[in-house]
């Protein structure tokens, strides 16, 4: 069984929010109860209590255990995110202001991420200009795209469909328009697409910007 | 930054320890200012070990060593000037401080020639030589200019402080039983010295 990142992430979220909610409820309830029970009217003179070592130890130790549980959930999910399965297919992703482009092993380029259903995809991320971040909310994964570095991430397209890709690291004027899509196709359909695109010389690739930006000046006229 | 807290019309008791504490805390901020640069230096050295060695070869160890001795000696004379003042040898104290100023000045002159040579060779940001250098060397020289430049700026500030101290001693504002300002100026100068003690091996010696 391949690890299920989406599920893992949602479980971690529920665990942490669950524990948090209980603690919050406890604290809030206790506070309002005290305010009601020990109001000036009901309890005109306060009792001189200045501390209690047992309690201090308890409310240091118990939260410590709780956060270790949280850490454990987060960490084990994270390890899966970082270990791409060995049978993953690799796609190169390039971010530039303000578009994504994808390149497949056979040299086909595209501006929509076509992937075959059921095969894990490893993405190699690089940037042509400034920082971006490749984010697919539906798959609960994101990784920044940093110039001068190669980052990676992987995901598991289980269901056919269209999913949103967003740029999540602020990158200037059209940051919010730096969107793209993942198109999960049945394996045969994907293979046909890949082969046909190879023949058609990037036919499915709408107006790719191929100029990598070399000079430092003028790349970023934001006005 | 003064030991006399004057509010309205009343004087709070002079607090030398408080004043010194203030100075030390200020030195910590200076230390962490350079600390940020040292973190960068360490990181880039780690990323580009070979390039750093190559680049360091091109710095003049002799100038660096002479400058180290100059700063150490100027630190000594500041320390001595405080003793002299405590022993009521006012003019000797002034003389020692003047020596410090001279040594600090000589340090800056050396630095000036060192930078000019490098710039003469086209090694400066956006300079003609830079395009031929590896990434690591470019970063090395970036750090070199920023760190030694920042340090030189501190030398200048330190010299101004010490200049003021000379005036204060001559005017009798810093005396054998009231010399916290001189102590503080001294502390600052020693810090400048300490920073150089680290800059020197990091830039000139690590071949």
């Amino acid at each position, binding site marked *: 069984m391949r690890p299920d990142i989406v599920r893992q992430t949602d479980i971690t979220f529920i665990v942490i929010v669950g524990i948090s909610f209980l603690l919050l409820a406890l604290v809030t309830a206790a506070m309002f109860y005290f305010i009601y029970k020990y109001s000036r009217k009901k309890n005109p003179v306060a009792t001189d209590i200045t501390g209690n070592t047992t309690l201090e130890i308890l409310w240091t130790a118990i939260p410590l255990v709780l956060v270790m549980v949280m850490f454990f959930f987060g960490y084990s999910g994270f390890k899966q995110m970082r270990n791409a399965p060995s049978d993953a297919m690799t796609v190169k992703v390039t971010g530039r202001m303000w578009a994504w482009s994808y390149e497949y092993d056979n040299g086909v380029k595209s501006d929509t991420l076509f992937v075959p259903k059921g095969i894990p995809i490893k993405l190699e991320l690089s940037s042509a200009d400034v920082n971006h971040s490749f984010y697919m909310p539906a798959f609960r994964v994101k990784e920044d795209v940093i110039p001068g570095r190669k980052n990676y991430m992987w995901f598991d397209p289980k269901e056919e469909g269209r999913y949103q890709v967003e740029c999540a690291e602020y990158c200037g004027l059209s940051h919010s328009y730096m969107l793209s899509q993942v198109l999960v196709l049945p394996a045969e359909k994907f293979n046909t697409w890949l082969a046909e695109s190879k023949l058609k010389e990037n036919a499915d690739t709408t107006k790719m910007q191929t100029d990598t930006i070399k000079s430092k000046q003028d790349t970023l006229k934001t006005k | 930054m003064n030991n006399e807290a004057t509010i309205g019309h009343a004087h*709070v*008791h*002079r*607090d*030398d*320890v*408080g004043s*010194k*504490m203030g100075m*030390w*805390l200020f030195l*910590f901020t200076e*230390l*962490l200012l350079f*600390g940020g640069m*040292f*973190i960068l230096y*360490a*990181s880039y050295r*780690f*990323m580009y070990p070979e390039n750093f060695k190559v680049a360091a070869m091109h710095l003049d*160890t002799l100038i660096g*060593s002479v400058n*180290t*001795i100059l700063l*150490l*000696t100027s*630190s*000594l004379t*500041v*320390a*001595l000037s*405080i*003793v002299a003042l*405590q022993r009521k040898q006012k003019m000797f104290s002034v003389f020692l401080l003047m020596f410090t100023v001279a040594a600090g000045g000589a340090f800056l002159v050396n630095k000036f020639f060192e930078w000019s040579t490098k710039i003469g060779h086209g090694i400066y940001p956006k300079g003609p030589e830079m395009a031929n250098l590896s990434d690591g060397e470019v970063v090395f020289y970036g750090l070199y200019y920023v760190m030694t430049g920042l340090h030189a700026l501190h030398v200048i500030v330190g010299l101004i402080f010490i200049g003021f101290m000379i005036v204060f001693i001559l005017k009798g504002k810093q005396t054998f*039983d*009231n010399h916290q300002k001189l*102590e503080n100026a*001294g*502390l600052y100068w*020693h810090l400048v*010295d*300490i920073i150089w*003690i*680290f800059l*020197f*091996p*990091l830039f*000139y*010696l*690590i*071949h």
Partner: protein
Amino acid sequence: MSENTHIQESSAAELQHPGYGLYILVWAGLVGLTTITVALAGFNLAGLTVVTALAIAIVKSLLVTNYFMHVRTDSPIFKVFIFVCIAIFLTMIVLTFFDLTYRFPLK
């Protein structure tokens, strides 16, 4: 906790500065260490170059702080301060290197 109670103790502690002799001795030590570190740079100590150079620099700075800056004889609170400051600086470096070391694995 007595370093403050009130502000009276000012200069008494200050007066026991060492004499000229000690300072000159410290200076001689510093110059000596400088010579050593420059001389060592001529040899190829491989991985040890950085370590020795930094070790010598640390010794030198200890001399300066302890003697020229009187930390040795001052109130211990200054030692505590310096310790805190250095400790925090070192944690910054160490934690940064947890990233770098594993990001650019050494060959």
